């Protein structure tokens, strides 16, 4: 399993009137070929910002101010906008945006909107394009007659499948999914998760799966990256994060404790007190120290580095280094 994507010291700041907001602040990680990397965190921790940064598509007033995104050996941040559009975006990396199923154009049939995207990127005649579209419609488990329908005639789950097909039919290597199951009912959620697992097997895709829900992440992600306030708090394998053995970051433990479990009766759920810090003026030291249950003196003074504590497992926490 080689690395397909490597991100080094990526920084994306939003330049607001009150100063720069550090949406993604010095983040490094890699994605192996054929794996799913989960990105979890609370709202406002920079998960979606990270996704848009990987497409070099920050939403204004955001700007990527540093770092590298190395895709298959070359840094895509060195390319100009035209090159990125022609070679990278949707061609190599595509994204299923949050709530994307609600962004289908209501006045076009499904076929027409899919065709438009396809012909923007590839010079294909109608017949070849139609064939490609049908192939991917079948991959996502829909029948051809949805192509003649309008979005309002489809259910949420069907629309989400269309959006996934659209993200796939240019045969990208990396697909970023931003909360792809959040607005769906539980049964449909499970079906979409199954679909993504099947596609990963069939097409050899690599996924970055962004969500706030640790339960979903446990079922889809091979490795998990926990973000807090624009930084990586922890990154590790599924086993290391959910296995309940070994060390985990106090923030991850807090999130896990707050996740209700259906099949276990608990008298009381834990929660993390307080709210995430304002990224305009992040706190000194560890960004989590104001909410951390095991805070020490050092935490408020010095920022912990992201350090490998065992193979594949990196944590940014002074507590975890001491012991």
């Amino acid at each position, binding site marked *: 399993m080689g690395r397909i994507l490597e991100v080094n010291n990526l920084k994306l700041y939003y330049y607001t009137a009150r100063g720069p907001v550090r949406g993604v602040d010095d983040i490094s990680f890699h994605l192996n070929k054929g794996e*799913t990397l989960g990105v979890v965190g*609370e*709202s406002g921790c920079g998960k979606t910002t990270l996704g848009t940064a990987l497409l070099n598509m920050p939403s204004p007033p955001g700007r990527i101010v540093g770092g590298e995104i190395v895709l298959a050996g070359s840094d895509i941040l060195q390319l100009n906008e035209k090159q990125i559009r022609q070679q990278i975006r949707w061609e190599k990396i595509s994204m299923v945006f949050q709530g994307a199923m609600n962004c289908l154009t209501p006045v076009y049939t499904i076929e027409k909107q899919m065709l438009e995207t396809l012909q923007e990127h590839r010079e294909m005649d109608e017949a070849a394009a139609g064939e490609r579209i049908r192939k991917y419609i079948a991959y996502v488990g829909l029948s051809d007659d949805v192509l003649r329908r309008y979005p309002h005639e489809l*259910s*949420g*789950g*069907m629309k989400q499948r269309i959006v996934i097909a659209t993200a796939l039919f240019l045969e990208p290597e990396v697909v970023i999914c931003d909360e792809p199951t959040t607005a769906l*009912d*539980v*049964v*449909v*959620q*499970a*079906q979409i*998760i*199954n679909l993504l*697992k*099947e596609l990963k097997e069939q097409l050899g895709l690599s996924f970055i799966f962004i969500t*706030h*829900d*640790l*339960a*979903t*992440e*446990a*079922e*889809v*992600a*091979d490795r998990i990256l926990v973000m807090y306030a624009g930084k990586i708090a922890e990154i590790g394998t*599924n*086993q290391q*994060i*959910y*296995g309940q053995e070994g060390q985990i970051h106090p923030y991850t433990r*807090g*999130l*896990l*404790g*707050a*996740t*209700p*479990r*259906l*099949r276990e*009766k*608990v008298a*009381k*759920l*834990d*929660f*993390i*007190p307080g*709210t995430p810090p304002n990224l305009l003026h992040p706190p000194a030291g560890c960004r989590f120290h104001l909410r951390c249950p095991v805070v020490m003196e050092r935490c408020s003074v010095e920022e912990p580095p992201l350090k490998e504590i065992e193979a594949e497992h990196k944590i940014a926490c002074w507590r975890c280094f001491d012991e």
Partner: protein
Amino acid sequence: MSEVILEVKDLKKWFPVRRRISQLFKGEKSWVRAVDGVSFSIKKGEIFGLIGESGCGKTTTGKLLMKLLESTAGQIIFQGEDVTNLTPEGISRYKREIQMIFQDPYASMNPRFKIRDVLLEPLIIHKLGAGLEERISMATEVLEEVKMTPPIEFLDRYPHMLSGGQRQRVATARTLILSPTFIVADEPVSMIDLSTRAEVLQMMKEVQQDLNLTYLYITHDLSTARYFTDRIAVMYLGKIVEMGSADQIVDNTLHPYSRALIAAVCEPVTGKVNLIKEVPIKGEIPSAANIPAGCRFHPRCIFAKPECWELEEPGLEEAEPGHLVACRRYQEIV
């Protein structure tokens, strides 16, 4: 705990839909049967969960109880009094007793109101409290109850200055200020961050115990319902298909639909990454304008046999004490 505070008998809400010309000539009418014969009773001091997918009629049921919608048929009995048809004064009195917390804490508050105004508005509408001073002291009291301390600091803030969790606390405080006995909470935590969701639920539970309130908790999320509620009713296409204590529903699930819902829930447990989850259900939820004949779940049920669509719809029957199920074949499919 044994006294019944609210009883709903065969409650229905049918919405008319636009007719085709041919129907117009024949004098036929089409209906969306959003709530189609729902009966349950809630005891005082209980937290009752109403669970189902979107479109199953759970929110409509909540709105019927709040008298935000008029029911088509059926009865609502609150504290022994039939409140299905009330005079305007009766409704005003009833609404002081029964209050609602809405799903979206960002949309349910006027952005130009300070928290003070948000809390005082119900008092002004219901003409409670003598003068501003008493009203303010009532407002600080409820803010303390929902753990927004010190209250003075929050009174002059605007909703945009609060986090989602804090807003939902204010929404709870707003319902409490009228000292209701019954609260309808429609997905109160689904838009709040996971890390604070538990905090809000716990606050709601503490308030409930402090003030001896009764909740109807409407949600699609079984995991929080297991933790938060005493009893659960599972709704499908406008009808209750299974009802029992939270433990009975989760640990001894009887109806095929509830089984599918439970099977679909993800858990934060390792080792499931490459497994395809089996969800024992077929197809998609049909439209409430076109409810299948016989058992309304049969087109999606993996256990369905001809008796399920040929015979008439099964009613709720008691499978074990306090555990009701509407399925003909529940004993065969265990």
